[in-house]
């Protein structure tokens, strides 16, 4: 009897191999924002401005669906319903609450980098530059992607006076211009227009995009 090897299995395997080596796939909407048309392994993307959290989730969503694990470090206020709507796979999402001090924080983040492909982190203000550099080196050797969410809430934004400890490869600065679907007592929030400024070490020329998104 001839042994049948299912073709799909072979195809799947080679597909998997390719996925490991290449960048993480991102959705079409955010692809044009990124310089390499995807999340390149070992890099840091920093999202700031008022739409930072949802932008970070939309960056992770596609890779998370394809089997990568997502570690959320210190961003305890991240809306889980929102993550579901973006398409993040909840069974591969882990919330980690790290200690505040610089050294402990970097140890924790290093442990998360060891296990997970994608990280969404909030950087504490106490983090020293040397600890940040250690984390970044670990990230590059482990080939994970770290997305920093600057917790610009209603109060003052972080790192206004001091320089940010991480040198981000791509910085996405968001400003919401308008919301539609809502009208003095009627309707509900549906769509918005966001201006996204793209800059950073890996971006040759800073650009500004105007994006309409339904989140």
């Amino acid at each position, binding site marked *: 009897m001839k042994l049948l090897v299912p073709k799909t299995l072979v195809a799947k395997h080679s597909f998997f191999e390719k996925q490991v080596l290449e960048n993480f796939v991102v959705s079409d909407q955010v692809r044009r924002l990124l310089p390499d048309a995807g999340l390149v392994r070992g890099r840091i993307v920093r999202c700031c401005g008022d739409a930072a959290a949802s932008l970070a989730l939309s960056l992770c969503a596609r890779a998370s669906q394809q089997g990568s694990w997502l570690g959320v470090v210190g961003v305890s206020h991240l809306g889980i319903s929102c993550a579901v709507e973006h398409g993040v796979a909840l069974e591969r999402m882990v919330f980690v609450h790290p200690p505040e001090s610089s050294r402990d924080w970097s140890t924790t983040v290093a442990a998360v980098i060891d296990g997970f492909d994608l990280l969404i982190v909030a950087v504490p203000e106490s983090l020293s530059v040397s600890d940040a550099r250690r984390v970044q080196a670990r990230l590059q050797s482990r080939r994970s992607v770290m997305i920093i969410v600057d917790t610009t809430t209603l109060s003052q934004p972080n790192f206004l006076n001091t320089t940010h400890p991480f040198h981000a490869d791509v910085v996405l600065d968001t400003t919401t211009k308008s919301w539609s679907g809502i009208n*003095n007592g*009627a309707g509900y929030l549906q769509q*918005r227009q966001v201006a996204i400024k793209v800059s950073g070490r890996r971006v040759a020329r800073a650009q500004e995009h105007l994006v309409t998104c339904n989140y």
Partner: protein
Amino acid sequence: MLRCLDWSAVVAAKTSNSPCVVVHGQRVVSRSVAAMSYGVQVGMRRRHAQGLCPDLEIATHQPDRDRRAFNTVVRTVNELVPLIEVSEPGVIVFATRGPSRYFGGDEPMADKIVQALHSSIVADSQFGIGIADSRLAAHIAAHISAQSTAKNTAKAKTPFIVKPDQTKVWLAQQSVRVLSEFANISSETVSLLERLGLNTLQDVCKLGESVLAGRFGELGVELHRLARGDEQHPLAAVAPPPEHLCSRTFEEPITDQQTLLNNVQIMAEEFSDYFVKHGAICVRLILKFESETGAHSERLWYRPQGLTARAIAESAKWQIESWSHKSALVRVQLIADEVRTDTARQLKLWGGVTQIDETATRAIGRLTELLGSTAVQLVKWQGGRDLQDNFQLVSASHFQSRHNELNASVVKPKWRGSLPTPSPSVVYSEPLLVQVVDKDKNLLRVSARHELSAEPAQIIISRQNYKIISWAGPWPIEEKWWDTARSRRLVRLQVVIEKFLSDDSRQVQALLVALEHGEWSIAAIYG
């Protein structure tokens, strides 16, 4: 069984007489005796509890702190009784047959324990001792004993003893509510039983096992077992794991705690894998450490949902921390004491586990070790109208993500009354108080019919005024209005505000504001 009521509040309170509550996720999980006299109940919202008792001391939920404090009690009891089981801080379980015979009966033994604990921290808390034939009955007995001592504090603590062979009869009179309080049966199931007219355990027992199994499935069998005074899960006969899996002798004595725990972790993984292969799970385990000098520490561990490798490792950590003879260790032993068939889990046909999943699982284990089990959490859907209720974060150590039961990929139905999508990306667990005012600077109110008193015009966030350029809503929530302690009534509004940044550029921001107990707060931001 020895049971301390509201252990974590006892630990958290600075003095024994001050009212104190322990709060987790805005709900009271434990309260001290003094707080109870003000009418504070477990499950109440924080603000409600503060309303009842203004000078309430509020502590955060820290299982590690409770655990450490309980170690002294465990040690004291361990001097009298050799093999004890600590399933959660505040509860000690042990088999009484041996110790009672030694001390000359159940009552002298209980008195001995009360005397021994007289000088420790528990002396001024409510604790009770109950003796019965099944775990559930002993739990109830201990609870009754604790409450009776609370009522007449002047009197000595009296144990509550159910005579041998009387357990079944005594248990039959208990109301079905005890199942949710002491046996991990969900309160929905218990409320369903009540609505079916089954008010006592006797009624449940009379119905017959097959009828219950027909209606509730696996759960029905469990209910019947509990009601008739058996243990919750039937025992499974699995050959004990081979010697090399359950015992390890170290050539070089280990002094470092972390090294030891790593060793236990590896052992625990092999140990639980053995049972998984045989379709069973270990629910009760004896963990034994032996030191160079010949001293040994031996303790029982029980988890009704089964001890996973991670849970075993955590137990080992707890046991080592509480052991005072910390010298070099030469031997670790894991002895499976109670094994049941594993019914709840089914692996995927093709395994469904990739390399990535395995590294992630290992990383979760490592993080749990590093930060404690409460700092690493997975997401579980539970449903609800409010954003915080919709999903729950559960400690990762309770789950073996290798076969992740959370299975969140299934599309969950949306509850009626929940907010329209898209959902906000930033949700505050601690709402930020603000003021929403109309154009005449009057605070906005909502009538009983959920009508706004005027159009919202401005929002004041920490003394800064922002103009509201558009709004929608309100979306009301009225939950559990039949229950005064747990009822909630709030309305939510979506508002879009206008902000000017330092460089004069204009920015809009969408917020979700909520009105509860007459106070406006920001519940979430569409960030």
